[in-house]
């Protein structure tokens, strides 16, 4: 804090070499765990996050079952080794809050009413954290839900925008998150132009906020395309392996 870090240089380039409205490199994989009903993996910058879905399945404990829809449960959790200082595996208040807002982000997207008396359990495990884990977590969880065959109105995609080094920037990394001026994580259903998660830390004028939201939504749209590609690649692979099996 004593020496201010230069988050954006005079050429408008950020500490990791990106331009202001550039996403970090993103790698998506679908269907990578054998036990879960659906799973996916994301690398976004140095973030490494797994998501898995179990359900619709019987609810334990039973009294939590809802008569008219599925119970959606969500756990956002960080591995003890995912951050600089070892994190206790017991859920922190931050993890509890993020689990709640992520669950609320997915509730409008899933056709929960199709599966009364069941639960759909969504687990997001941050293996390495580098800023923006809740957004990357939403993005990857969406793929895990799709992989589990859970019917959704739209994929949920998430991306943050904010302000760092005096500039509005897209997809903040760890240092921009910690040393920057503002961070706005946004989850979005592109087909409905609907925001289902929104938070903000920091200080922004309404005008800056408006621009930042638009920037975040642009980021969401780019990642949405990547999500669809990742799903297509998975289906393609399944289809091919099915054809191979048939041919044999």
């Amino acid at each position, binding site marked *: *804090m004593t020496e201010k870090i230069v988050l954006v240089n005079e050429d408008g380039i950020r500490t990791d070499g990106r331009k202001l409205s550039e996403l970090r490199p993103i790698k998506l994989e679908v269907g990578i765990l054998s036990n879960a009903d659906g799973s996916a993996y994301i690398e976004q910058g140095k973030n490494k996050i797994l998501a898995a879905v179990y359900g619709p399945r019987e609810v334990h404990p039973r009294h939590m079952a809802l*008569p*008219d829809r599925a119970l959606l449960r969500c756990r956002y959790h960080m591995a003890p080794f995912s951050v600089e200082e070892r994190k206790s595996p017991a859920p922190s*208040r*931050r993890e*509890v*809050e993020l*689990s*709640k*807002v992520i669950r*609320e982000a997915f*509730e*409008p997207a899933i056709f929960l009413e199709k599966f009364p008396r069941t639960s759909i359990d969504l687990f997001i495990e941050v293996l390495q954290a580098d800023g923006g884990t809740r957004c990357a977590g939403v993005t990857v969880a969406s793929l895990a839900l799709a992989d589990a065959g859970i019917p959704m109105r739209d994929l949920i995609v998430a991306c943050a925008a904010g302000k760092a080094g005096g500039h509005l920037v897209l997809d903040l990394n760890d240092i921009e998150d910690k040393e920057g001026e503002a961070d*706005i994580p946004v989850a979005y*259903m592109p087909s*409905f*132009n*609907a*925001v*289902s*998660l*929104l*938070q*903000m*830390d*920091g*200080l*922004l*004028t*309404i005008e800056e*906020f*408006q621009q930042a*939201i*638009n920037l975040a*939504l642009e980021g969401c749209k780019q990642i949405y395309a990547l999500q669809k590609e990742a799903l297509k690649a998975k289906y393609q692979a399944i289809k091919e392996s099915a054809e191979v099996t048939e041919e044999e």
Partner: protein
Amino acid sequence: MTSIMVSRIRRQQIAQLIADGKRLDGRGPKDYRPIQIESGIIGKAEGSARVRLGKTEVMVGVKIDIGEPFSDRPNEGVLTTNAEFVPLASPEFEAGPPGEESMELARVVDRGIRESKAIELEKLCIIPGKKVFVIFVDVYVLNHDGNLIDASTLASIAALMNTKIFKYEIKDGEVEKKPGFSPLPLRDVPISVTFASINGILVVDPWLDEEEVMDARLTIAFSKDGRICAIQKGGSGTLSPQQIIEAAHIAKEKTEELREIVVKS
């Protein structure tokens, strides 16, 4: 079944009124319930306030202790915000460790105070890297009739505004209390405004019946200079980007009104 049907009828009734720009309790969409703030009511606490927002009632006590700074902020005091859903406040609240709702409440109140830099934490260092003042803000919900976030933010900032810190001197590396107090150094007065979205229409300061039927909740907090310092969306519905921007403009206006009430109290 019955309670689902009742809630459906209730929902229609509330939503119908809101579509006509009205509310079941007679308020307009941008009206807050009556606000009553009493400050300095708990003499044993370094700061305190009770806020009544309609029938919602929240007490906040501020306690000050000496502790260690965070290793990445060796020269700053520590702010710790906690919220208790005291079981006498609602038939829904249960005794026991804090649940996700009260953790969210504490974190949203904390965010407004922290991000607006309302407390001059850098003035609360006693011995760099070793001893700093720890400010405990304890939000105590006494009656829940909706919009706990705004009531808690108001009560917290009101309590911080009357918080006093004991004077001290350092003898052989130990802190000794001296007689007298100085006020907690504050540089901002963050205020939050919470909306309910019901059938796509935004109303401020939802009471409990509205919260039960709302699709989504949106809280926007502003610092003194008119900048947004914290946002939290809640609930399982969605908001359009346009609604969010519209809400920000309304919230800015309302925070100015509310800030005046707090500052005068």
